């Protein structure tokens, strides 16, 4: 009985602590809010056969996938922005586009964002790499 009451008190403290943190985090997040915008100027680069379907990959999508693959499958969104020459809004839009294609997972806190390759994204990144090498562009891409 006493233990149950102590557990309730502990839960009450945890909820109170969490509520205070959530309120503060959401106020702070307003300063970091960025709305993603998909970059308009993207040039179709490849049509790849993936899982029995054709997938069109643009120059910026290919670059982003290679950057994430180069980071071992996990990379900061900032690094993608730098590599593709996009600002943070457009880089976020590009990452969301890749997420919709099932190629990456966006792990995002308001002030920090990380892009993680999915197994399909890794497969596509490897095909992009091979295709660039075939075209003699492999070293330039790296």
């Amino acid at each position: 009985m006493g233990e149950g009451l102590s557990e309730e008190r502990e839960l009450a403290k945890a909820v109170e602590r969490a509520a205070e943190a959530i309120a503060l985090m959401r106020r702070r997040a307003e300063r970091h809010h960025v709305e993603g915008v998909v970059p308009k100027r993207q040039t179709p680069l490849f049509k790849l056969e993936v899982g029995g379907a054709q997938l069109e990959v643009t120059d910026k999508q290919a670059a982003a996938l290679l950057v994430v693959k180069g980071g071992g499958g996990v990379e900061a969104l900032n690094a993608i922005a730098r590599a593709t020459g996009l600002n943070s809004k457009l880089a976020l839009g590009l990452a969301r586009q890749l997420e919709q294609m099932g190629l990456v997972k966006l792990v995002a806190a308001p002030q920090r964002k990380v892009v993680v390759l999915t197994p399909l994204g890794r497969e596509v990144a490897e095909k992009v790499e091979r295709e660039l090498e075939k075209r003699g562009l492999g070293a330039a891409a790296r």
Partner: protein
Amino acid sequence: MTPLIVEVDGRQLELGGKEAAALIVMRFVGWSAVTLSDLELATGNYVSAISAVAKLKALGLVNEYSVRGFKLYTLTELGEKAADELRRRAEGLGLWRRVEEALGGA
């Protein structure tokens, strides 16, 4: 300090109050990952945040992504279920209104 015992998927998880607070924050704040400084807010200070993360990772409730000198933390599926169970219990005791206020007041 009495630990909170949460049963999820047939597993009994023993959580401290700060770990429980961290789980609630991660599940309900409204975004997919949190930073260590977010967890400091939930647990009180840097040392508690590090200790809570270590315990939650060991229990399989939290994933860590480490990139270019910073770390992000997300809940695993088990972590989400544990946080949902904490919510269910808090609601049963009439404690959840504080979290709803915090979410609504942003």
